């Protein structure tokens, strides 16, 4: 029930956004908005959807997606898992980092259909109930963020960095975390958080 309510809210929000984008498009370029056959939202509807099975944060999903849907957009727009962030959307910032079968990837450069059958973990899947994951605890303890927008990607990447065995020194952490950009510049604290978890020896 909760999900369906959410869906309705989200669709209402989307309708609003659609309308407002029509309005702004009309203001900016009336002819283009009306005549351009490539106008995205108009032609999207008839496209065939592909069935897709994914396990996300331990829950099995049977979905239908357009082939051009990225894993990031699927997570955020269809499944409302908005913890995973869209930063650049071009694989340059790492805000969209999730785990696919345990490996960290950029969900923005991943077409959802290519992940058929895989187990995806997002930031929402790290904590156990109200108990934060050790890496989440460490980011809080070390103040590993300022605005927090890059944080879900940083944390997913940091967990993978330790699991891969690439967190043996501050230099190694900096190198293997280089795919996650933080415009606030919280890097020293992020490195401290990762070193702390690594030294603590907890299973991540």
């Amino acid at each position: 029930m909760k999900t369906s309510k959410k869906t309705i809210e989200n669709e209402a929000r989307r309708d609003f956004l659609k309308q407002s984008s029509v309005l702004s498009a009309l203001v900016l370029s009336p002819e283009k908005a009306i005549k351009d056959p490539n106008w995205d939202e108009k032609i999207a509807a008839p496209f065939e959807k592909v069935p897709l099975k994914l396990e996300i944060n331990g829950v099995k999903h049977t979905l239908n997606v357009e082939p051009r849907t990225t894993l990031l957009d699927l997570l955020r727009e269809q499944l409302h898992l908005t913890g995973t962030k869209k930063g650049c959307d071009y694989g340059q910032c790492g805000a969209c980092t999730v785990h696919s079968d345990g490996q960290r990837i950029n969900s923005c450069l991943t077409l959802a259909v290519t992940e058929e059958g895989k187990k995806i973990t997002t930031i929402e899947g790290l904590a156990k109930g109200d108990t934060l994951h050790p890496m989440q605890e460490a980011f809080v303890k070390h103040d590993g963020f300022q605005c927090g927008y890059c944080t879900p990607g940083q944390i997913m990447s940091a967990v993978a960095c330790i699991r891969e065995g690439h967190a043996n020194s501050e230099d190694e952490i900096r190198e293997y975390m280089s795919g996650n950009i933080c415009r606030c510049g919280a890097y020293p604290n992020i490195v401290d958080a990762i070193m702390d978890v690594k030294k603590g020896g907890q299973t991540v």
Partner: protein
Amino acid sequence: MKAFQYVRANTAKSALEALAKDPSAQFIAGGTNLVDLMKRGVTAPDKLIDISRLPLNKIEKVANGVRIGAMSLNSQVADDKLILEKWPLLAQALNAGASAQLRNKATVGGNMLQRTRCGYFYDTEMPCNKRQPGTGCGAKEGYNRMHAIFGTSEHCIAVHPSDMCVALVALDAAVVVQGPKGERTIPFTEFHRLPGDRPEKDNTLGKDELIVAVTLPDSPYTQHAHYLKVRDRASYAFALVSVAAALELEGKTIKSARLAMGGVAHKPWRLQEVEKALVGKTVSEATFQQAAQQAMAGARAFEYNAFKLKLAPNTIVEALKMAAGLTA
């Protein structure tokens, strides 16, 4: 992103059949470059054939070398015990490229086929002979700081962005490709092309072919090999100049050498003449300075990349010194 049809292939044969049916289709493996290009409208295929599940991801010891399946991930190759032991230069080059996330998706075959990061190629409002033949080269008279100093043509001055390929070309790799008529092998030096008057063609892979593997011969370059990448930030940036240097030493005498550059040409830039000249020489700063000078013959800079004429030889000297163990 423009909508497209999606087909998932389970064997190399079915992938090639799907391609034969629709020659305008494109293969997608890791997609780390292709999806980026599709989002920006640089390329807009009507059909994608997903080859990421092809059983071509094994790294196998074969007689006289190793065979790396084309679908092997960049991270998988970089962490492979056999590669680390016998071809450390390749692992170094792979780890110098992209980010951990991208290396977990990008495949060996896809890395070879990645397109240039020239800003004029990426910007669909700009002229670019590679993206749209006949429109001209925006970079030649434009902002060409990242661009080539070797092998350019009046039609294109873009560089190939791969690090992996620089190590592969230095290590005498070969590319195994499969087509309707069966398999053929292309020496790595002949896989990528110079732009000439066909800059839209990055390589010599047939339109009806699929890369299935890369092979490397056994190599004596296990001890004295170094990949040095110079870039605008410490990590996660494309090379301004990179050098793959490998030496086979007997005491202080060079028995054989392998040398290639990245970030300087439309293809990974192997320096075979310089390698030959190094044979028999004694390891020293002077020897390497001489090699670097020889390597720069024929270099030509543009308005914003003249710094590469100095940076490239310096990087060669430094990489050779590191390979030889002359620096701390």
